[in-house]
């Protein structure tokens, strides 16, 4: 069982990170991955990701441990970028490896749903007209995180 958590300004390499999960165990039958990226539109240029150093890493590790307790995994990875990210740039890499595809994909959904509102990151948007704006937490994101409390596993 292997947990890999990182917070970094640099881009992540999806190929390298997925391969890290694939080779963890010969009993791995599938790897689920989600890559979040800066979605353009309405004149958005970039986002700046602020975080709470120390608490961020702790929250991501806690989340990973929850996934491992809940799903039959061979490992999982959470990588979150910080700093200024332009439209199209990768923000977050979430991955889960498991003997069976169901656990890999459900754990991937669990990790990204929980990460959205459960780790201390905040996004400030920057528009072409010069306006900047902190992103409001979406009710739908909080609902998605809460829904996992009722699911099994």
């Amino acid at each position, binding site marked *: 069982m292997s947990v890999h958590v990182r917070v970094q300004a640099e881009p992540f390499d999806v190929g390298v990170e997925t391969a890290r999960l694939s080779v963890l165990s010969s009993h791995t039958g599938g790897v689920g991955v989600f890559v979040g990226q800066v979605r353009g539109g309405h004149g958005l240029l970039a986002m700046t990701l*602020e975080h709470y150093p120390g608490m961020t890493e702790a929250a991501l590790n806690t989340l990973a441990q929850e996934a491992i307790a809940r799903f039959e995994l061979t490992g999982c990875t959470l990588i979150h970028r910080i700093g200024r990210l332009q439209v199209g740039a990768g923000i977050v890499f979430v991955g889960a490896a498991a003997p069976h595809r169901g656990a890999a994909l459900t754990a991937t959904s669990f990790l990204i749903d929980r990460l*959205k509102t459960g780790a201390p990151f905040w996004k400030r948007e920057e528009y072409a007209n010069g306006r900047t704006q902190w992103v409001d937490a979406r009710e739908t994101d909080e609902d998605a995180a809460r829904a996992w409390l009722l699911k099994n596993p």
Partner: protein
Amino acid sequence: MADRVTVLFFAALREQIGQDSLSVAIPAGGVSVQVLREQIEKADPAIAQAFAEQPRLRVAVNQTLVTFEQMVNPGDEVAFFPPMTGG
């Protein structure tokens, strides 16, 4: 020197308040987050206003999310911030 806690602000709160940290004197026996909150609101109108404008204020003590009933002791780190928007 009195017993103190470090208070941190993040994101929109940090910008509205105009600073990212405070050192605050508290009783040696500790106080609840709620009492600490009222104390710093009284001391700085910018804090009172920023908190008032944030109906879903979150708080962490020693980097763990807690409720406003949580006790805070000298030496603790208390962070106030808006709902988290990662991912």
